[in-house]
């Protein structure tokens, strides 16, 4: 028999350690006792999971393999030492190795009491549902006045004590056998058939069909039409496969889709229950474990791309177009990064196309305001462009003095708006604005990116020109189909069908260098497989760090405060990996203190897609008093600051006509959210007011005033720049919103060729960066719709440079 003995303290001197050591020697003919120490166990923290750390894994593996566990505990303040409690908390959090395990408690203490009270506490703790140990009843071994109990050889002096310990240990061996018999897995019998159940997904209920034969789960079908495409797909494929393959419900959730994963597992459990069987039996069946793997796997390619979002897949496609090999490494199970979460439209000035559309109210005013900016406030490198733009605008305004006119745009307007939008001061008064050469590169080539994407196979809806939130101008090219996923679907298809390789769940741990050149990466793949990738160039396209609150707070110089529990609109993968990798090889950083909040995020999830998201000219924002509080056409910063000043939570108001302009939803989703209480709907404004707990009269007055401003084309209260629909047709809607972290403007310092630069301004050979991992373009604030323009433009540029510099390929 094999037991694990746990020393219940991290103190250097411990009589409990001595007691276990004595038992180890004294009972060596009957059982093997391996002693484990608590010394290196970190303090338990549910917000920083360390279940996978070597020290916790060591406990998990050894306890799992052992027949039983002996805990030797001192008594501190009538209870368990915190160090022992911390270990037990780790062992009842994500992994449960003590579940069903026979446990014996012994304790030594200085006092006569001999740990009597801690033993009772420890029993209760071990009996808690998360721990689930089988603690041997009775036979309490209490060693009082432990400092006098051992002789110099470490043996117990009193023969009576030895006899009692021996009888307790014998009983524990017997108890272990009894528990073992109890733990034999139960047989399972299903009433065969197909069961209709529902699983709770991220966006509500998912219908599922589970087919069971007499003794097997045969098939799991899920109707996932209401889930966000791209993110949860992997969960729908992998979880059912693992359940069916292993005939077990002990399946790990897919990272990034844990709600959906657990939804599927719970759905199957429900079907099992309906079929007259006990799902707990399936939950206790062993996990499917992977086969043994080689130590390090070597891979060879031309270019490695880190991150399979929009920037990474664009770079990969561009490499493949030149006939070179590419390997894309993605740490998450699904491709798409943040791009799948994007609202859809990308900015690119295309005046010939935009002039087909009529100007809308307020746009001329916006242009006029630009011409009225004092040139002295424009930074010198932008002045020539600013003057040229003023001429363009004046010509346009003159041409359309007496008519509504068409929608104006130009590369210069896009450039100057990007510059003006990014100009900010931080809390210390430092000024920042977009680096001219990078902004010029972006605005000069954004339209080419649209055209390049069209060639790859992305279809754009040319019948409408849209303006994403915070975009300032209508120059959004909207792809057909599903928002950001439309780009990813097409790019992924292009990359895989043209010989590119995408490895998911592969986390790059460091860049490999040789004489100052980057020549590949080291990575950890599925099941902790170590990879060494050798390549001519590495393109970092790993995104920003909006999902890394600690890092945000560390660098932040812009917001007065960032809450510890702030939500993010981003994929949880956005933890600043590329910044960490590149700074380790000498890369410089720029503009790290600036981050952007998305004012219109779901208060519970940080998501953008819930509720009704409509064009800003149709936004009506009301605070918790039912009053408007901001110019809804304002920049994201203005909206965020106004929201924070109004207690963060606010509502987007809509009527039935405004609802029809929502670009993010369907009637089925709307109904589902109303049902779930995350979106409010009422036939009268008064009723809506009551639902969102604001004064009905106030809300009615707010809407009345707003409608009169739409009629007048002028908002004397908040000076909203553009209007479209009034709020008048029932039913009325209110979507609750709160600011969430959205974009990190700072990042790796790059040049116009996407080369990663050192603090000395020289390029690091073989290293390129594109997208949110790089900084310098958006500076203090990024215009809505510019991130997509950025990733597709600099993704192509990074690939072009890598091809030219390292592989002697030029266009």
């Amino acid at each position: 028999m094999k037991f694990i003995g746990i020393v219940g303290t991290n103190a250097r001197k411990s009589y409990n350690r001595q007691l276990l050591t004595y038992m180890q020697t004294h009972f060596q003919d009957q059982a093997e006792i391996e002693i484990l120490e608590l010394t290196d166990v970190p303090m338990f923290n549910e917000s920083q999971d360390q279940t996978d750390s070597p020290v916790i894994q060591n406990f998990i593996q050894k306890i799992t393999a052992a027949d039983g566990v002996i805990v030797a505990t001192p008594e501190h303040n009538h209870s368990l030492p915190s160090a022992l409690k911390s270990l037990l908390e780790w062992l009842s959090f994500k992994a449960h190795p003590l579940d069903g395990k026979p446990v014996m408690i012994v304790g030594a203490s200085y006092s006569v009491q001999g740990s009597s009270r801690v033993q009772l506490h420890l029993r209760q703790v071990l009996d808690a549902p998360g721990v689930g140990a089988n603690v041997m009843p009775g036979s309490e071994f209490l060693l009082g006045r432990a400092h006098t109990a051992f002789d110099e050889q470490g043996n117990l002096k009193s023969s009576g004590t030895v006899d009692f310990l021996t009888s307790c240990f014998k009983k524990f061996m017997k108890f272990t056998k009894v528990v073992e018999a109890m733990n034999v897995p139960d047989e399972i019998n299903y009433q065969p058939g197909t069961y209709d159940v529902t699983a709770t997904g991220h966006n509500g209920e998912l219908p599922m069909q589970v087919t069971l034969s007499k003794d097997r789960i045969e098939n799991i079908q899920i109707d996932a039409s209401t889930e966000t495409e791209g993110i949860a797909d992997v969960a729908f494929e992998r979880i059912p496969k693992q359940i069916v393959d292993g005939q077990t419900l002990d399946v790990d959730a897919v990272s990034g889709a844990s709600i959906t994963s657990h939804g599927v597992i719970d759905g199957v459990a429900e079907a099992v229950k309906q079929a007259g069987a006990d799902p707990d039996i399936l939950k206790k069946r062993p996990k499917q474990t992977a086969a043994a793997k080689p130590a390090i796997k070597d891979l060879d390619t031309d270019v490695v791309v880190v991150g399979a979002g929009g920037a990474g897949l664009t770079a990969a496609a561009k490499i493949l177009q030149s006939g070179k090999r590419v390997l894309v490494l993605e740490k998450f199970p699904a491709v798409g990064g943040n791009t799948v979460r994007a609202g859809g439209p990308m900015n690119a000035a295309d005046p010939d196309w935009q002039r087909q559309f009529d100007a809308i109210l307020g746009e001329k005013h916006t242009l006029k305001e630009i011409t009225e900016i004092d040139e002295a406030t424009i930074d010198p490198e932008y002045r020539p462009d600013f003057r040229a733009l003023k001429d363009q605008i004046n010509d346009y305004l003159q041409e359309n003095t007496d008519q509504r006119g068409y929608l104006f745009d130009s590369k210069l307007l896009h450039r100057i708006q990007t510059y003006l939008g990014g100009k900010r001061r931080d809390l210390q008064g430092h000024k920042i604005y977009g680096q001219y050469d990078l902004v010029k590169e972006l605005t000069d080539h954004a339209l080419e990116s649209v055209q390049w994407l069209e060639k790859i196979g992305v279809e754009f809806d040319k019948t409408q020109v849209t303006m994403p939130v915070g975009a300032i101008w209508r120059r959004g090219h909207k792809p057909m189909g599903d928002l950001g996923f439309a780009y990813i679907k097409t790019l992924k298809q292009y990359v895989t069908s043209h010989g590119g390789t995408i490895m998911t769940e592969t986390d790059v741990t460091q860049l490999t260098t040789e004489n100052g050149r980057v020549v590949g990466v080291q990575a950890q793949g599925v099941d902790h497989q170590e990879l060494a990738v050798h390549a001519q160039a590495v393109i970092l396209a790993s995104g920003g760090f909006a999902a890394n609150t600690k890092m945000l707070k560390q660098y932040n110089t812009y917001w007065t405060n960032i809450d510890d529990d702030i939500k993010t609109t981003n994929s949880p993968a956005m933890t600043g990996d590329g910044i960490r990798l590149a700074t380790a090889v000498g890369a410089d950083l720029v503009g790290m203190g600036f981050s952007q909040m998305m004012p219109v995020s779901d208060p519970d999830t940080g998501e953008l897609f819930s509720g009704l998201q409509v064009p800003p000219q149709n936004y009506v924002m009301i605070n918790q008093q039912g009053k408007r509080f901001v110019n809804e056409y304002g920049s994201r910063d203005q909206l965020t600051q106004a929201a924070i000043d109004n207690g963060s939570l606010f509502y987007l108001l809509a009527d039935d006509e405004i609802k029809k302009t929502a670009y993010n939803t369907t009637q089925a989703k709307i109904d589902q959210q109303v049902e779930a209480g995350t979106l409010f709907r009422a036939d009268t404004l008064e009723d809506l007011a009551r639902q969102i707990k604001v004064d009905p009269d106030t809300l009615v007055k707010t809407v009345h005033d707003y409608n009169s401003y739409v009629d007048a084309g002028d908002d004397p209260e908040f000076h909203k720049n553009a209007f479209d629909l009034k709020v008048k047709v029932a039913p009325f809607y209110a979507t609750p919103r709160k600011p969430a972290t959205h974009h990190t403007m700072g990042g790796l310092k790059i040049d116009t060729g996407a080369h990663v630069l050192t603090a000395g301004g020289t390029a690091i050979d073989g290293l390129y960066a594109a997208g949110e991992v790089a900084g310098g373009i958006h500076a203090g604030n990024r215009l809505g719709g510019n991130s997509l323009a950025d990733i597709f433009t600099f993704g192509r540029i990074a690939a072009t440079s890598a091809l030219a510099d390292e592989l002697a390929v030029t266009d």
Partner: protein
Amino acid sequence: MKLVGIVGTNAVKSTNRQLLQYMQRHFASTAELEICEIADLPAFNEPEQRDAPAAVQQLADQIEHADGVIFATPEYDHSIPAVLKSAIEWLSYTTRPLINKPVMVVGASYGSLGTSRAQAHLRQILEAPELKALVMPNVEYMLGHSLQAFDEQGDLVDQAKAQELDKDFQAFTEFVTLMQKITPQNKFFEETRQFSWSQLTAGKE
């Protein structure tokens, strides 16, 4: 009246923290409640030197200068979290500021039981000779289903639970005042502020 409220967890999101924040606001006219976090305290490891690390000393000073202490504890595995136990071990092992200090125990949990077992353990712990806190008898404030318990403003949704807390807090302030009258004459005299488990028997053999 000056009180210290100890958040019994290191979790980023905690309804016990929320509960203390609510109490801080709601009872502002009666008492000044200072909220203390324990997340950044080092883990207790029974060092040879019995000097309090700076963060522990700071917490000890805050307790020392307060008229009473409120512990808000979650329940992990039928007991208090290790991180709270560690904080208490430091206090009991170094400066012992809880001696004769009036204490109220509250707790919030996601489930329905509202930390009943953790509170019982905490009482036993605080009454250990190394600590000798004066835990208020008779009052147990347990907030079950705590994720649903607060509204957007951080106020308690359930009026009955809010009233119960009003009453319990009132009782605690009276308890603090009463104890202040008794303790100067009290015979709990400590020869030394320092303590270790090995000393426990040293004088009594």
